[in-house]
């Protein structure tokens, strides 16, 4: 008897697996309306490619971009990989090339790995603007301009200032940061000399910047790094984490362990709101990812229509502000916003 059961069940299973496979994709197909066939005469085709599509920070980044696209009457597709690696992102840069988009706004998942692919897109006539994360300085010719929050050093030194405020400029400090991430490395290199020169009573744990940096790429590793810091340096005064994942994890650990160490860094207001409201954290800062997406789209359109060409000194309008390109073909948004008990309620609903 059970032979018949197995035969019938496996036939049903096979049919459902096939249907499941197709059904599972059908909604996705409608969700991102492909641009072919419906290109209105004037409207542009812009691709918005994050490091990975399922991350909260980039959802906000995309919102900003879509707002600019609506204002510029362009069609913007939000496509990208589901894991943060150069190899995965390259597949979607190829899709942009094949589907002949006019402009590519991209946050580099790997500062080197995507450079050859970007150069192919550039040679295919696509205007490329990096936003939020740039390619390596040596390969800056593979994109027209890069829209970054603020001066690398400014982002680094600002976080040191916030920490100084929190521990009133005395005590040792450690850092939790993802390994092999270009932005974070640049900011940390800026923090090193600034702390020792500006705040004589403050110091890096272990006596040097190298020793003070603990590497962590995801929530689990960030929590373990927090524990490792306390284990090795029980009298550490403050921990800086220049990444939304790291600072959130540090806040969770500080609250769970009721640790005295002060925590600050770059955090999303929506994710950090409860920790600021309950006093676990006094101040964190971040630029508005919506602005990054918004300004990048305007930069791309300006470069496409000219005369703006991303040269150092040139400038382009975005919404009600204009941005000028500085050395390295980079346009900075300005100093990061800071969030404290006072303004967290207002910002946590925006991003």
């Amino acid at each position: 008897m059970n032979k018949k059961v197995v035969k019938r069940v496996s036939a049903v299973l096979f049919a459902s697996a096939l249907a499941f496979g197709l059904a599972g994709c059908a909604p996705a197909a409608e969700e991102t309306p492909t641009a072919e066939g419906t290109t209105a005469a004037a409207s542009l085709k812009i691709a918005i490619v994050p490091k990975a599509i399922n991350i909260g920070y980039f959802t906000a980044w995309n919102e900003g971009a879509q707002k600019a696209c609506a204002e510029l009457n362009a069609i913007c597709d939000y496509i990208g990989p589901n894991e943060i690696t150069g190899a995965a992102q390259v597949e979607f840069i190829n899709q942009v090339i094949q589907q002949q988009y006019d402009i590519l706004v991209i946050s580099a998942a790997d500062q080197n790995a995507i450079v050859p692919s970007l150069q192919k897109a550039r040679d295919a006539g696509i205007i490329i603007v990096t936003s939020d994360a740039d390619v390596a300085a040596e390969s800056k010719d593979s994109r027209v301009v890069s829209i970054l929050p603020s001066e690398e050093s400014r982002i680094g030194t600002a976080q040191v200032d916030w920490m100084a405020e929190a521990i009133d400029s005395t005590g040792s400090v450690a850092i939790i940061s993802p390994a092999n991430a270009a932005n974070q490395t640049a900011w940390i290199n800026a923090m090193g000399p600034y702390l020792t020169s500006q705040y004589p009573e403050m110091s890096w744990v272990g006596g040097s910047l190298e020793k003070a940096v603990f590497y962590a790429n995801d929530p689990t590793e960030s929590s373990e790094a927090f524990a490792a810091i306390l284990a090795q340096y029980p009298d550490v005064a403050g921990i800086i984490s220049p990444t939304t994942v790291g600072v959130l994890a540090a806040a969770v650990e500080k609250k769970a362990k009721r640790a005295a160490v002060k925590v600050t860094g770059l955090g999303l207001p929506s994710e950090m709101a409860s920790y600021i409201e309950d006093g676990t954290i006094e101040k964190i800062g971040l630029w508005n990812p919506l602005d990054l997406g918004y300004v990048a789209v305007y930069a791309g359109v300006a470069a496409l229509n000219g005369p703006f060409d991303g040269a150092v000194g040139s400038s382009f309008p975005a919404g009600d502000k204009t941005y000028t390109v500085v050395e390295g073909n980079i346009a900075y948004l300005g100093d990061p916003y800071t969030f404290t008990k006072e303004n967290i309620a207002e910002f946590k609903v925006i991003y």
Partner: protein
Amino acid sequence: MNFFSRALRIRELPGLLGLFVIYVGTGLINPRFFSPSVLNDILYGVAIVAILAIAQTFVIVMRHIDLSVGSVIGFTSFLIGDLSSQGYSLGAVLAVAALVGAAVGALNGFLVAYLGLPSLVVTLATLYIVRGIFNQVGAGKTIVESMVPKELNWLGLNRLFGVPYLFIIAVVLMVVAGVIMHKSRAARDLYAIGSNPSAAELVGIPVKRRILLAFVATGAVSGLAGAVMLARFSSASTQSGLGLELLVVAACVVGGVSIAGGSGTVFGAVIGAILLQQILLSIGALGIPQFWQLAVNGALIIGAIGLDRYLSTRVKPSNIMGAES
């Protein structure tokens, strides 16, 4: 022989020994390692991998493997936060988490037991499928502390006599699972199936039903473990649980749960999880640069596999050459 002496049989000894030697060794070199807060960090950090290792033991003992646990725990920790933020009660969301895990386990179990497919392939496929669905459902959303059920937040933050509640949950599960694996007939059948699958059929053990049962149990426990993960990180995103599956299998192997099936206990699996977690902190305390941590983990697992093989071959043979010599 009572429960504990049976559990402390030769298989778990190396894990315990390793645990003790590394703990004391690190402490001697860096006395601060003995501080209670470090011990607390080890126990706090190990809860998730320990619970997943307990669940994984059910299938490894039967000479099978379940790679889909990484996606299951990530997905359920996200679902619990998402659903409870929409007003569902804690009981309801935990039921959903267990059901989702059990459903994936049932699919795995059915394909392995009734269609005779290799468990490595089936659970590799469900690892992909569940992660794909999870990304689709959770696209762009992040679970933050405010969305996490209050009870879980409370559990995550508090301690009972200095021991984190999450670790206590893991220990309670270990004891319950340990008693079931040791005392219930269905669980003893798992060991028989793993030790000699063809003989298990002959003796009349309902092998297919047991395999399905084990995969459903592994799935359900992994699903519920999502709550522990959410309590631990009080946040969840589509990146949660990525890559946990190989770490969990490694913990089982280090804990004496033999890949060849038929032997090993949940007690050993938890020891393996603690050992791996402690190595992490020891490396930091010993001042070994962090970049060495993954390499040391790899070397430790090779050592454990070698020891596991050496132990299983050195068993007391009753002599072959005639009874008297």
